[in-house]
């Protein structure tokens, strides 16, 4: 036993040290060099989760049933694996909407409802009271263990409550921060997390290796004790069945998200979303580390104090005390103090913020008699409310400890609080993933869950402590067995927490989903729902509709955050050139950071002339909508055009490729065609060159062939040039008015020799007068010569008969050149107009033409606006016809 004054002095010295740490961190924050902007500090601050419950209670729980302490830490580990998805979203939402607490978060999600914020606050405060009483119980019990009972006049727990209240006020409510950041507090919490971990590891190591000789030794001794041996395989025995284990895991998963202090350190005090990355594995690692020695200490205690005379919750302290390890006991006491103070400080600050922003201020602001919205400076009032709330919460915690705390072990008290905060889960988680959740649904769900919680957990706790008649537990209210709080509707055989969780969740989720679906959400709810659920899709919040002057807004802000902070903020606004229309929104955000979203909403309503939605605005909204429809139509059109253009391009590309192929083919055919006459010219000239003694007649014959082949060559080259000129459009046209009758007669005369050679007859049937046509005379002659020479070539010598007819048609002149040759089979009739195509060999022998004549002719006629075609049946001759438009038509076409 240590001297009481020494222990008191050391405790105060430790609290002073904490204060120094906090003060230093605050100074650094003011200087802009934050010490808590680190993922390691962030992870340590999350370890505020490990309270006196962990420090003392886990051992008590382990001594009771072996594994029961573990789900409280394994559950959060599993939940944290989901944080990258869930918590990152909550963080983003909270930063964008300047959320100041859990109540603020839920109220803001459901249309900034002040009523909902108030309900959440009430549930949080009442639900957390058992948890705070647990800390008071643990600290006063540990103090009594270390320093002995104080004189009977003094009530240790009361003193602890008052000292912690004073300490928290000094910590958390020194000034109003417009983002609810408490840098000093976070630094102190992180420091405390280190202290409690080291203290627990120290005592654990001492028990394991000092008192006994290692883990194996302790477990071997436990196995040897028949009373303790079942602890080694506890499921189905001392630890109950698996269902209660699973429910404890789920409960802890929810608690790590929705305990007000966890929300405070994880969300509100978060400096950087990226810190989550380290915290996701560091914080579970912390929990693993602080649990490693729980079993050795628990079993060590059970072995050491076999008769059950010592409360298992105090084994951590009583073991070193029993061995006169007073220094170690002191370290443990400080560690336990760290765990408890850390929890109390953060929890009460978080709760006091909620009480102030979501419970008291909305009410005060609505009471017109107070004329609060006209007061000049409200910062003092805000601080006053928060300080009052802190004292009140701690005194209520003390009261709960007095009424109900003594009958329960630490962990059982804490679990009651866990079950209370788990009621927030449907509204909060539903709110960030489901747009359909409504204010009515959330209100009903929370209330129903809370009522069931009160009935199945809180009232039985009072009844056990004989503040309510115990018959209420045993026979139900008014003797109605079906309503027994511990076996609602006759469901018995579950442990109390599992039973309460099942029924409260059924009521909570049922009401939340049911009422949400029963009635559609209002405009404000829908807006907030979109902001929350689609936070990663919409980078900002849409501005509030309404008007207010800048000076008015400044006054409102100054009243809550003080003159200096308000001028700073407005200086920043004007530097960023923020338009006046957005000012309302920014000021609301700043205000929300101080007094919460719902209070800020109410407060601003007094200065903002908010036109709910005038006809003009409705029209604007409709216009916007129709604009969007229009845009989408245009977009559709554009995409169709694009598709068409692509199609055309594809076709053009195909055509180009075809042309390229044709060009290659053309070149290869031309070179082939050129080579035939060249070869014969060369061979005959070589004969002439090598045989000077050749007879003159032979020589003359050879030279004749050479001359003929040369002529053929030059004709071919001329045609190839023609083709290329026609195709490239570089051909020269000398158009004039010509008399076709004259042209035909001239051509017939010029080709007369050709027919005479083949002994064929050429007949012309021409009308007396025909209108003139506009065309290039030489080209038309070229066409006629081509047609006539073809005809001459193909008719049978001696019996050949070729006829040219000229006639006038509608708007055109038509020329037919018919012969009595072999004719052209149907499949060749179009092919012959292609380049280098020939229908067959003329009866005279080998083909002499290049295969270009008809192609060129058709190009010429088409250029003149006419048409060239053939009609024929195999064996019955062929008739080539072409038309030329009359002069005025020709003039038009040109």
């Amino acid at each position, binding site marked *: 036993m240590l001297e009481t004054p020494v222990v008191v002095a050391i405790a105060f010295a430790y609290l002073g040290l904490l204060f120094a740490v906090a003060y230093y961190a605050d100074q650094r924050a003011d200087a802009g060099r934050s010490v808590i902007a680190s993922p390691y500090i962030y992870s340590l601050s999350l370890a505020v989760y490990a309270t006196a419950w962990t420090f003392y209670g886990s051992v008590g729980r382990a001594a009771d049933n072996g594994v029961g302490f573990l789900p409280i830490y394994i559950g959060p580990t599993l*939940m944290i694996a989901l944080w990258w998805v869930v918590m990152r979203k909550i963080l983003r939402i909270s930063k964008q909407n300047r959320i100041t607490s859990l109540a603020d978060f839920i109220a803001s999600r459901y249309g900034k409802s002040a009523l909902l914020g108030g309900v959440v606050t009430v549930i949080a405060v009442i639900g957390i009271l058992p948890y705070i009483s647990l800390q008071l119980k643990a600290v006063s019990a540990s103090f009594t263990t270390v320093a002995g009972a104080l004189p009977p006049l003094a009530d240790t727990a009361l003193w602890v409550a008052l000292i912690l209240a004073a300490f928290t006020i000094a910590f958390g409510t020194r000034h109003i921060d417009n983002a609810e950041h408490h840098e000093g507090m976070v630094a102190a919490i992180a420091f405390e997390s280190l202290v409690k971990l080291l203290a627990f590891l120290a005592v654990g190591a001492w028990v394991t290796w000092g008192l006994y000789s290692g*883990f194996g030794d302790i477990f071997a001794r436990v196995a040897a004790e028949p009373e303790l041996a079942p602890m080694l395989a506890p499921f189905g025995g001392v630890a109950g069945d698996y269902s209660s284990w699973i429910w404890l895991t789920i409960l802890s998963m929810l608690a790590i998200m929705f305990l007000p202090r966890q929300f405070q350190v994880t969300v509100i005090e978060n400096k950087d979303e990226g810190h989550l990355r380290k915290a996701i594995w560091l914080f579970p690692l912390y929990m693993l580390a602080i649990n490693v020695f729980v079993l050795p200490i628990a079993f060590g205690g059970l072995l050491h104090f076999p008769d059950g005379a010592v409360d298992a919750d105090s084994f951590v302290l009583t073991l070193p005390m029993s061995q006169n390890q007073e220094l170690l006991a002191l370290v443990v006491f400080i560690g336990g103090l760290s765990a408890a103070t850390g929890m109390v400080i953060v929890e009460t600050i978080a709760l006091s913020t909620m009480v102030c922003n979501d419970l008291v201020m909305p009410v005060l602001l609505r009471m017109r008699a107070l004329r609060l919205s006209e007061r000049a400076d409200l910062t003092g009032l805000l601080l006053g409310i928060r300080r009052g709330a802190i004292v009140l919460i701690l005194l209520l915690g003390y009261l709960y400890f007095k009424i109900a705390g003594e009958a329960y072990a630490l962990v059982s008290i804490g679990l009651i609080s866990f079950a209370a905060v788990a009621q927030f889960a449907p509204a909060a988680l539903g709110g960030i993933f489901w747009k359909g959740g409504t204010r009515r649904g959330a209100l009903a769900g929370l209330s129903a869950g809370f009522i069931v919680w009160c009935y199945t957990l809180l009232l039985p706790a009072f009844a056990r402590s004989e503040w309510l008649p115990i018959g209420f537990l045993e026979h139900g209210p008014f003797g109605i067995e079906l309503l027994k709080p511990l076996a609602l509707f006759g469901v018995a055989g579950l442990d109390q927490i599992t039973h309460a969780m099942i029924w409260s969740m059924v009521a909570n989720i049922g009401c939340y989903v049911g009422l949400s679906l029963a009635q559609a959400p209002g405009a404000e709810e829908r807006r907030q729902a979109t902001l929350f659920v689609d936070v990663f899709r919409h980078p900002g919040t849409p501005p509030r509709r309404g008007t207010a002057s800048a000076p008015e807004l400044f006054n409102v802000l100054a009243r809550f955050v003080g003159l200096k902070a308000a001028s700073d903020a407005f200086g920043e606004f004007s530097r960023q050139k923020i338009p006046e229309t957005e000012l309302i929104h920014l000021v609301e955000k700043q205000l929300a950071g101080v007094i919460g979203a719902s209070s800020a909403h109410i407060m601003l309503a007094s200065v903002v002339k908010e036109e709910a939605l005038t006809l003009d605005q409705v029209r604007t909204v409709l216009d916007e909508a129709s604009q969007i429809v229009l845009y989408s139509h245009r977009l559709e059109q554009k995409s169709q055009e694009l598709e068409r253009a692509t199609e055309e391009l594809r076709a053009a590309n195909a055509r180009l490729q075809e042309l390229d192929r044709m060009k290659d083919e053309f070149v290869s055919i031309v070179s082939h065609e050129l080579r035939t006459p060249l070869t014969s010219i060369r061979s005959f000239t070589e004969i002439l060159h090598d045989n000077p003694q050749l007879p003159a007649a032979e020589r003359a014959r050879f030279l004749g062939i050479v001359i003929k082949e040369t002529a053929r060559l030059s004709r071919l080259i001329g045609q190839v040039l023609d083709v290329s000129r026609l195709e490239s459009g570089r051909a020269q046209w000398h158009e004039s008015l010509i008399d076709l009758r004259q042209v035909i007669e001239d051509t017939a005369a010029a080709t007369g020799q050709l027919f005479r050679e083949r002994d064929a007859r050429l007949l012309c049937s021409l009308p007396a007068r025909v209108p003139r046509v506009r065309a290039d005379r030489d080209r038309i002659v070229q066409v006629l010569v081509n047609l006539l020479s073809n005809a001459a070539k193909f008719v049978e010598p001696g019996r050949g008969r070729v006829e040219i007819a000229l006639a006038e048609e509608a708007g055109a002149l038509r020329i037919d050149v018919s012969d009595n040759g072999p004719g052209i089979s149907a499949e060749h009739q179009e092919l012959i107009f292609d380049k280098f195509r020939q229908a067959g060999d003329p009866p005279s022998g080998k083909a002499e033409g290049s295969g270009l004549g008809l192609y060129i002719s058709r190009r010429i006629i088409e250029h003149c606006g006419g048409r060239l075609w053939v009609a024929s049946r195999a064996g019955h001759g062929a008739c080539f016809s072409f038309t030329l438009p009359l002069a005025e038509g020709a003039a038009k076409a040109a």
Partner: protein
Amino acid sequence: MEQFDVRGQRLAALCLLGLVLFSYPVLAVFNVPATVAGIPVLYAYFFVAWGALIGLMALAIEGRRE
């Protein structure tokens, strides 16, 4: 931002794995009165599996994204 987030999915999968590891019937497998290196099987299992899960979580969140 809600694009294909491989980290979030891996972590969510680890959460499911944890739920399996720490519930019936897997726990029942280890709920036997035997020891491993002097430590009861169930307790050894708890801490080893828990530690491994944390290790995997660290790997999932800190590991390089391929």
